């Protein structure tokens, strides 16, 4: 690193230390830019891929009201995707490049969406647990040092908290419902609990990105701390539903005033992240098919816009 860069980097870090936001036109270290592109595009991809497990039940939603709520939720998620792609574009990467990285498997998305939705309570569990875990992460990101990302998160968090409430409401209905509905609700928490905890990523001691991201204030709270926060908030909610959290080590700890709990199956975590979960291949293929299959539509829209531009120019001439 030459002297100029060192000076710039020093100024950059002191700005961050002073809790000032970094804006798109500001100087930033390449690694900071790269980290943000990785994280924000991953976040955007998660919103888009996340539509698929919900879409799996959209056509089978059990009432018109539930269908309408789910459509509104999915629409929000598409909106978050758009918003996040735009925010990432401020860092000099195009949406097409980000898609390319997703479709080639180079970019990741939240692994949780590689699990299948097998019954209607899964839609409740996704809202309650998956969006709940996402909010826990995203509230911390509202104070992220990169301005466009922080601002995007403020907006996203508001909508996500509505999503979480509707998810919990589905779970309430199910766990107060018929015997079969209760079984579906329990089955859903059995399958989604651990993957939801995995959403916070590896233990701090094993996390490649944590320490630098904390210095840069992209990340403000560590994986393990956020995960614990989520467990402490969610276990009482499960109790209220009368559902059993699938962890026989789970116990209230008077001393720490929080829950002790078991250990994540890290082999499973790594396996799904590596692309070998039940739905990884299918999810990615669905996205590729939609993108490739839609090329003629995008080409047509572009061709039409060109024609219109030319017509306007001819008219003006």
């Amino acid at each position, binding site marked *: 690193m030459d002297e100029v860069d060192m000076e710039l980097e020093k100024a950059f870090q002191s700005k961050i230390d002073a809790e000032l936001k970094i804006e798109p036109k500001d100087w930033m270290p390449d690694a900071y830019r790269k980290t943000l592109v990785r994280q924000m595009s991953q976040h955007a991809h998660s919103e*888009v891929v996340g*539509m*698929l497990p*919900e*879409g799996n039940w*959209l*056509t*089978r*939603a*059990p*009432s*018109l*009201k*539930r*269908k*309408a709520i789910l*459509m*509104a939720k*999915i*629409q929000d998620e*598409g*909106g978050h*995707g*758009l918003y996040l*792609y735009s925010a990432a574009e401020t860092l000099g990467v195009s949406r097409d490049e980000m898609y390319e990285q997703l479709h080639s498997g180079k970019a990741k998305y939240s692994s949780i969406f590689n699990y299948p939705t097998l019954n*209607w309570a899964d839609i409740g569990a996704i809202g309650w647990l998956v969006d709940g875990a996402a909010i826990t992460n995203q509230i911390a990101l509202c104070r992220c040092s990169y301005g466009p990302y922080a601002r995007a998160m403020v907006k996203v968090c508001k909508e996500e908290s509505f999503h979480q409430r509707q998810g919990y409401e*589905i779970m309430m*209905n*199910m766990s107060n*419902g*018929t015997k*079969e*509905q209760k079984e579906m609700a329990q089955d859903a928490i059995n399958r989604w609990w651990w993957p939801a905890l995995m959403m916070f990523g590896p233990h701090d001691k094993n996390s490649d990105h944590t320490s630098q991201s904390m210095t840069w204030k992209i990340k403000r709270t560590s994986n393990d701390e956020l995960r614990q926060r989520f467990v402490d908030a969610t276990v009482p909610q499960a109790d209220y539903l009368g559902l059993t959290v699938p962890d026989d080590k789970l116990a209230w700890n008077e001393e720490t005033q929080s829950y002790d709990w078991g250990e994540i199956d890290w082999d499973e975590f790594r396996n799904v992240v590596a692309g070998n979960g039940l739905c990884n291949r299918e999810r990615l293929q*669905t*996205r590729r*098919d*939609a993108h490739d*299959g*839609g*090329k*003629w*539509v*995008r*080409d*047509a*829209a572009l*061709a*039409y816009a060109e*024609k219109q531009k030319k017509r306007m120019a001819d008219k003006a001439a």
Partner: protein
Amino acid sequence: MNDNEILFEYLLRLGDNCAILGQRLAEWCGKAPVLEEELALMNVGLDLVGQARLLLDYAGKVEGAGRDEDQLAFFRDTQEWRNFLLIEQPNGDFAKTMARQMIFDCFQYLQFEALTASKDKTLSEIAAKSLKEITYHRRHSSNWVIRLGDGTDESHAKMQAAIDELWGFIPEMFDMDAVEDAMVAAGIGTDVSVLRARWDDMINSILTEATLQRPEDTWSVRGSREGKHSEHLGFLLAEMQFLPRAYPDAKW
């Protein structure tokens, strides 16, 4: 049929179009050609499901047999549905979905515009609320028909094929029968047969701008008013109605 039965039947015709088309749009979830359209298709679908809820809820009340919107949506078999044949046609590619949508949006716009003057206050209010949404739907679908028609050779061919494929489903939408006549006479419904001329004007101008050929009127199919549907509707309903049918005692 007594007056209530006629109104019930009429409301089903209006509401079923919305319910089935909303369901068809829901099938697009995660598969749209571009993210912006992912949002738009969900948005239009959501509006339609909302309209279906208002209309079927009202239908249930008019019927007075204790059926609510969900009983009507989830516990009727194919032959009890009153949506147009056009509406239940499979999505096909994006051109076909947009052609179907444009054909219906223009129709529904004119129909609901007229229904805002209905003597039935509930219906006129539903129509007025829906009309704002339909105005947007119509603009959205017409723009896509134009864009694809006047886009590339490939998109032009696909859009022309879609229009051709759906053309014979159109005449049914403008048919009058005893129920429609009775509703017009009561000042509740609107005479759809007189809407045809304005619909034609709208469609002609869209097709012209899209550089598409208006197909000859060489064929037409009918039957939805009597519950004679295409084979597609049964599968749509099997999917849509699965949960409430499998667990009839459950509340969701």
